[in-house]
């Protein structure tokens, strides 16, 4: 039980590390966000779940589940908000970017957007 938890935690920490590494290596902010969000969400999830598996008497499972749920819900949301802000702020995409439909549509219509209806 404890060994399984330790292995899961180790896998999670590897994902956290890869996420941070991707944050360092990727060429522009949007690609960095890709690495940052996905790998760290998965990494945190595995890291905490492994700890809960190995130490369930000490720390209790319920709150750990709560942290995991909260991270899964809020992490993509905050990344979306930040990516949108970066795009609106005019931070350029990387040089080898193929196409940018959002900027194209943005120019086509000037009225304020975001209503969603």
């Amino acid at each position, binding site marked *: 039980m404890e060994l399984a938890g330790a292995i899961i935690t180790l896998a999670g920490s590897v994902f956290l590390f890869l996420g941070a590494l991707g944050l*360092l290596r990727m060429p522009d902010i949007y690609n960095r966000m890709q690495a940052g969000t996905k790998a760290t969400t998965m990494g945190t999830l595995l890291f905490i779940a492994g700890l809960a598996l190995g130490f369930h008497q000490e*720390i209790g499972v319920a709150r*750990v589940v709560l942290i995991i749920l909260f991270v899964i819900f809020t992490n993509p949301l905050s990344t979306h908000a930040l990516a949108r802000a970066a795009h609106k*702020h005019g931070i350029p995409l990387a040089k080898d970017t193929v196409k940018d439909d959002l900027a194209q549509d943005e120019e086509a219509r000037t009225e304020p957007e975001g209503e969603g209806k």
Partner: protein
Amino acid sequence: MADTLYAVAAMTGLAALLIAFIRMIIGPTSADRVVALDVMTIISISLIVFLAAFLERAIYIDVAIVYSIISFIGVIAIARYMERGI
């Protein structure tokens, strides 16, 4: 065996924290720094849970929960400021 693996995991997490910190220092735009800070926060949450487990204090988990909420709201605030929404 298991304890060694846990220790290695914590060390890897700390290394990830440092790497994200480098991005926060060099990040060319403010958005880069905020993303790096967000990643650092999430890694710190994991490490707080790690501490809670190894010091056998369940109460530290509460700190992690509140920290994740506050960091989410902070990132939203900065994002809204960057897109001139507030």
